[in-house]
């Protein structure tokens, strides 16, 4: 079965602290994985993507993610969060060749001043 699990519905961190948002996927084929961010009442913005190669991929605004085939994971990290990072973060799996995306339930990040 194809699925994406984000085990943390909500994460609260202090500004300047480091961040990790967890993501586990289930897919029998080669996974193409993404992290998207959604700010309140807006569409989704692509943070980063993983297709192959170096398991650590860099994204926008200082975000990075690490792919692990053995753990079926694609965790998102940031060394130092800013209050403007408060948003909902979706881990997403691309399946097949018709562009079908499987979304996790999302993790709401709240950054406290």
């Amino acid at each position, binding site marked *: 079965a194809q699925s994406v699990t984000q085990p943390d519905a909500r994460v609260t961190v202090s500004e300047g602290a480091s961040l990790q948002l967890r993501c586990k996927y289930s897919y029998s084929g080669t996974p193409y994985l*993404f992290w998207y961010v959604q700010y309140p009442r807006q*569409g989704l913005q692509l943070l980063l*993507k993983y297709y192959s190669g170096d398991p650590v991929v860099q994204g926008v605004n200082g975000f990075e993610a690490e792919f692990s085939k053995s753990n079926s994971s694609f965790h998102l990290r940031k060394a130092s969060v800013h209050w403007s990072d408060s948003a909902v973060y979706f881990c997403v799996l*691309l399946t097949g060749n*018709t562009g079908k995306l499987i*979304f996790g*339930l999302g993790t709401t990040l709240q950054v406290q001043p």
Partner: protein
Amino acid sequence: AQTIHQWPVAEIKAVGSPLSLGCTIKGKSSPNLYWYWQATGGTLQQLFYSITVGQVESVVQLNLSASRPKDDQFILSTEKLLLSHSGFYLCAWSRLGRSSYEQYFGPGTRLTVL
């Protein structure tokens, strides 16, 4: 640069009334196009995709239909709205070819069915 527009920005409609939501992509020829639905506070679910004019594939049955009358236009519609249709509708596009699979999303249309 490619831009994606959705209209209207928001709609409040009565149960049983018709609906038409639109999406236009500028600056990109022959994109793949997608419709997604997001329940309030929920995750996203792909509804339809289209790889060419006149061809639309349904992914989930929600008593909605979609059409692609032009290369750069994608329409989502229904003749009779249900309460369960409320939510946030997002259009997205992607490039053809194996080199790029990421999808780019529009600003969305918020639909409230009363």
